[in-house]
């Protein structure tokens, strides 16, 4: 996978931990973009900027929130990527009448926003911009989505056991997305009376604390040999 290799190379070269900035910067480098940012959000109103590569990235993030319009707002609302390859086009100006001209004025010409999402779990938006217009190629769209997935995993990890412990998902064999994990997420949400995002974080925290594969923990929940209860992390039955 090219995206993984890029992150690994980037982390190796800069000597940093695998972190939001590292993944965001690696994506910008791989896709020849200008900058990127990361907004963690649980609703359009509750949000926090976790990273911005430069002042313009920060202001693009800020102004979409202030105006309540823009590719990032749309990506979060729809749960789907929004690829604005030319903010100065007729289509963009109609779609975002206030944001698009302001962005162009500030020298951003293309903006690509990717929701951080697993089904009904939505944790924010990963966005990138370029100072020139132009669409992403199909391979670049796919790569950007892989980067967004990396960011999502980092966010989940940071919430479940703090940053700096990323080895277990970097080596994940792909079982991560299996149906059983999604089913267990739904079950744990009910057991703990929390939303699905929180439930997924708790599942991962349990897997991490017990050094177990996530799929195994999820299977335990679905088979009802493992149950989460409020206060305690998990009760083996």
């Amino acid at each position, binding site marked *: 996978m090219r995206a993984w290799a890029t992150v690994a190379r980037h982390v190796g070269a800069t000597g940093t931990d695998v972190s939001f900035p590292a993944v965001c910067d690696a994506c910008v480098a791989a896709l020849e973009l200008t900058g990127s940012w990361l907004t963690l959000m649980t609703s359009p109103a509750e949000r926090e900027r976790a990273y911005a590569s430069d002042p313009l990235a920060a202001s693009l993030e800020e102004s979409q929130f202030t105006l309540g319009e823009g590719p990032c707002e749309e990506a979060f609302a729809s749960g789907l*990527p929004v690829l604005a390859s030319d903010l100065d086009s007729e289509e963009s100006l109609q779609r975002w009448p206030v944001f698009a001209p302001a962005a162009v004025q500030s020298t951003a010409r293309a903006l690509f926003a990717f929701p951080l999402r697993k*089904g009904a779990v939505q944790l924010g938006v990963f966005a990138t911009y370029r100072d020139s217009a132009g669409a992403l190629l199909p391979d670049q769209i796919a790569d950007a*989505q892989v980067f967004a997935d990396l960011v999502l995993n980092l966010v989940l990890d940071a919430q479940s056991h703090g940053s700096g412990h990323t080895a277990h998902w970097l080596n994940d064999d792909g079982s991560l997305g*299996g149906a059983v994990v999604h089913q267990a997420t739904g079950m744990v949400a009910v057991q703990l009376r929390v939303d699905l995002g929180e439930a997924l974080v708790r599942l991962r925290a349990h897997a991490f604390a017990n050094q177990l594969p996530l799929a195994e923990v999820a299977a335990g929940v679905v088979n009802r040999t493992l149950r989460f209860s409020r206060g305690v992390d998990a009760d083996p039955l």
Partner: protein
Amino acid sequence: MPADRLAEMFVRLTDTLVTDFDSIDFMDLVADSCVEVLDVDLAGVLLADQHHRLRTIAVSSERARLLELFELQSEQGPSVQCYRSGAVVSVADLNMAASRWPRFARAALAAGFEAVDALPLRLRERTIGALNLFHVRPRTLDLVGMRVAQALADVATISLLQEERSGRNDEVLAMRLQQALHSRIVIEQAKGVLAEHLDSDMDTAFAELRRYARDGGLTTSGAANEIVSGVVRTDWRRTLGGGRD
């Protein structure tokens, strides 16, 4: 394969395409059509995610044990081979495939299937997934059956591109794939929510989800969305009027 059944099937598929379209329900219809018209015993539609791993989108039977046969193929099996090569893979006797795909062949045989076909979901030079057909008896599709199956696979692919106002095909396809993959995840999450509320297994939870969709005139995805968004507050025992008390 009687011509009137075939005609009826394509009328139903195209009707669904031009009216109330939902990608998961449409893929479900494709899977069900395979079982009805092609005389296969189990059918499923798989789409590749951004990591090029196959994800199960729709299956003609949602029984957990059968779902597993498709899930197993995120890593190995005829669908993976079909997806990677872009060509049809047919195995008339799974007993002969034990060394090729040990886990998959064992699971399929244990579930009572002797043979399997996998056809590519192809869009020009790209392969985006596979249509996977299982047979209880050792056989594969004949020539006519194979052509109808490929037509169904093509309809499934094309459905992902339809009714888009503007935009480039690559982008539309990327969006639709994401949408279908996430919709399927929401369905699994909703099954978990229901299973916990009803103290049931996943098969019962899915039947309940379907019933909830039917009663409310919703798509399966729409019902799943409602269920997961009400996860914190709603008392499903009462709302659904079902479950085991």
